[in-house]
């Protein structure tokens, strides 16, 4: 029984072994057939080079365009070339180096010889190369010089929008591509958005109006020349949305040829953006905010009279006014006549806690939130220990340094019916339909606009009263901080913060001049009313028509009659 069983199992094993052999043979045959077939196909068909699907651009790094609010191109990519060399293909590297230093005057001949006679089989010569330079190199006709395709980031508006767009640097570079990474401004802030392939087709639309921007920049440059200032900064903002229509800081730079490295004071570096990055004591412009807080908290109203004796003593400190002031002043007079003492007293009536609260709500405790990489670092400089004296000095703009964008946002908030405005560079604003948080009441906003109008009609800013634009605002002349402590007496930052038109506010303009001097009179004058104010008038006269704002003349019947009689 057992024997039979074993023999049967042995027979089954033999059959299985045969099956395995057959299977193995079949597999080998199939493999050989496959190899043979493939060889046949390769031998019989024409060789085809792998084609590059160029329209797809898959895998190539992308970077989206940037346009202004009207669709004008501010940043784009252009196809360009880079020049590299294979020294081992050259007959006479020294001759090539000679010729190349003729084409590129900026390149050192000895440096090139060292590069081309070295052991390396691949060296970069120059990137990027302009079409004209490429042609010149072609005309040399030496072997061993090669061109690689490479995108160039280009800024057609040049200097005009330099501080806004910022710039890029090439991070990964190959023969066929270069990957750009934002290094400043909008390019850096929106780096991820611009590099996102899904959004490459849709340009990033800014709130900037490049024509208005150019006009403002020209007016500022003229102002710098007229008042021999070291620099200027200006920002024009829409009151309702916080959109920045123009933003310029002089001196500036051409983003197509970004200057690298700078020796000297950081503030004089053309790459330093005074508007977003600079922090200045903004002087008497803060009196408007102090007065608004006083009205809002109810510690003062139109009937309140504040005592303004010659000086206000606080401990060892004396707060003085520069001009003789009346014994008692209303809130409006304090702003119009710009009384430091009156302002300091108002801040004490408000109380340090509430005063700080309002400044916080107006955004003076945080970076401005503007979409420039520089703005994120510009947190206002606050006093380390906030005493009552700090509140007093800050009430007239000393002791707190903030960027002009901060001031623009605060003034826009006051003008926007008291609702908080956040500055933005994106067209349409970031949250167009959501009204901002209320900081001041409607009544306070209205009253302060009237007060600011009075500053222009009969106060320190008379030189900006353009007929028909109902400009209101406040001047501020702040002495610059001396590095060792204390203040310079002959170096000032003069600022003018304007709102127009005051009956229906549309725009806020902040203009600051660094160390201006008006030498047209017998004595040099540095006050904002004589420097920043006329420049602001120039800017508004140039920019308002570009933004399609008509001068509005509102005349009473009597005025019409007298004008009519005089003009006929």
């Amino acid at each position, binding site marked *: 029984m057992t024997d039979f069983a074993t023999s049967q199992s042995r027979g089954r094993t033999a059959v299985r072994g045969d099956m395995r052999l057959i299977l193995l043979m079949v597999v080998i045959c199939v493999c050989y057939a496959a190899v043979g077939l493939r060889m046949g196909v390769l031998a019989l068909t024409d060789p085809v080079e792998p*084609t590059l*699907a*160029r*329209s*797809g651009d898959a895998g190539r790094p992308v970077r989206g365009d940037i346009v202004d609010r009207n669709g*004008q*191109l*501010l940043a*784009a*990519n*252009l*196809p360009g070339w880079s020049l590299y060399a294979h020294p081992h293909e050259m007959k006479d590297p020294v001759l090539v180096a000679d010729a190349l230093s003729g084409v590129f005057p900026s390149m050192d001949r000895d440096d090139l010889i060292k590069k081309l006679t070295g052991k390396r089989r691949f060296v970069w010569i120059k990137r990027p190369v302009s079409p004209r330079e490429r042609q010149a190199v072609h005309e040399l006709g030496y072997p061993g010089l090669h061109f690689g395709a490479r995108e160039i980031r*280009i800024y*057609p*508006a*040049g*200097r*005009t929008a330099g501080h806004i767009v910022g710039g890029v640097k090439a991070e990964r570079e190959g023969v066929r591509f270069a990957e750009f990474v934002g290094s400043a401004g909008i390019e850096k802030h929106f780096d991820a958005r611009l590099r996102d392939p899904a959004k490459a087709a849709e340009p990033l639309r800014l709130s900037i109006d*490049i*024509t208005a*921007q*150019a*006009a403002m*920049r*020209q007016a500022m440059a003229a102002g710098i020349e007229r008042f021999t200032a070291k620099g200027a900064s200006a920002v024009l903002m829409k009151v309702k949305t916080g959109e920045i229509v123009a933003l310029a800081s002089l001196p500036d730079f051409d983003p197509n040829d970004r200057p690298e490295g700078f020796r000297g004071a950081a503030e004089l570096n053309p790459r330093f953006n005074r508007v977003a990055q600079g922090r200045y004591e903004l002087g008497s412009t803060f009196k408007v905010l102090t007065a608004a807080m006083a009205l809002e908290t109810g510690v003062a109203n139109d009937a309140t009279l504040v005592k303004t004796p010659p000086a206000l003593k606080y401990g060892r400190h004396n707060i003085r006014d520069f001009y003789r002031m009346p014994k008692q002043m209303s809130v409006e007079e304090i702003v119009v006549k710009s009384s430091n003492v009156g302002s300091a007293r108002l801040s004490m009536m408000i109380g340090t806690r509430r005063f700080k609260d309002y400044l916080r709500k107006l955004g003076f405790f945080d970076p401005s939130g503007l979409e420039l990489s520089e703005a994120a670092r510009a947190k206002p400089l606050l006093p380390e220990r906030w005493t009552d004296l700090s509140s007093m000095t800050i009430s007239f703009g000393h002791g707190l340094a903030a960027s002009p964008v901060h001031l623009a946002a605060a003034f826009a908030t006051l003008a926007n019916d008291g609702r908080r405005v956040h500055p933005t560079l994106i067209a349409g604003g970031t949250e167009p339909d959501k009204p901002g948080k209320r900081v001041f009441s409607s009544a306070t906003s209205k009253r302060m606009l009237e007060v600011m109008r009075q500053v222009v009609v009969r106060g320190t800013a008379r030189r900006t009263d*353009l*007929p*028909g*634009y109902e400009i209101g605002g406040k001047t501020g002349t702040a002495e610059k901080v001396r590095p060792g402590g204390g203040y310079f007496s002959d170096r000032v930052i003069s600022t003018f913060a304007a709102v127009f038109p005051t009956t229906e506010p549309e725009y806020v303009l902040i203009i600051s001049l660094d160390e201006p001097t008006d030498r047209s009179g017998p004595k040099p004058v540095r006050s904002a009313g004589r420097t920043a104010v006329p420049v602001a008038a120039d800017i508004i*006269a*140039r920019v*308002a*028509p*570009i933004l399609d704002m*008509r*001068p509005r*003349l509102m*005349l009473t*019947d009597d005025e*019409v*009659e007298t*004008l*009519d009689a005089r*003009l006929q």
Partner: protein
Amino acid sequence: MTRHGIALLMLSIIAIAGWAYNVNYNTKAAIERVSTLRSEIAAEREALRVLKVEWAYLNAPDRLSRLVGEHNDHLHLVPMVPGAFGISAAVPFPPKTLEERQNEEVYTSVYPRVGGIPVPVARPVPGAAPSGASAVGRDRAAARAVTAAWSSE
């Protein structure tokens, strides 16, 4: 029968082979065409990009204002100023035709002229002649005031 069948089969094989040959080459041609078109599209796109940048560069406000300055002898252009805005009321009425003048005589008996300012014939004056300046008068005075204010600058 079988011979006929075989002949038919061979003919159909030849026909199908011919058809397959054709399709094969048509497909290859189409693939080639697609790739040429693709590279053409890519080239056009690139050209478009270059032209767009060039357009933006040529229209850069700074460049335009520099050119205007260089060619000031011929162009006499000035920056846009607020005084450049007009008011429709400041546009003079066209001189009247004879027919209109005749009609006017009829109308003025019904609608009196206001303060020496010509009222359009077809526009009725509300009520009697106003005591001060009319709406039209105010507009014109405002227009003159704007012009005067800005021309004195």
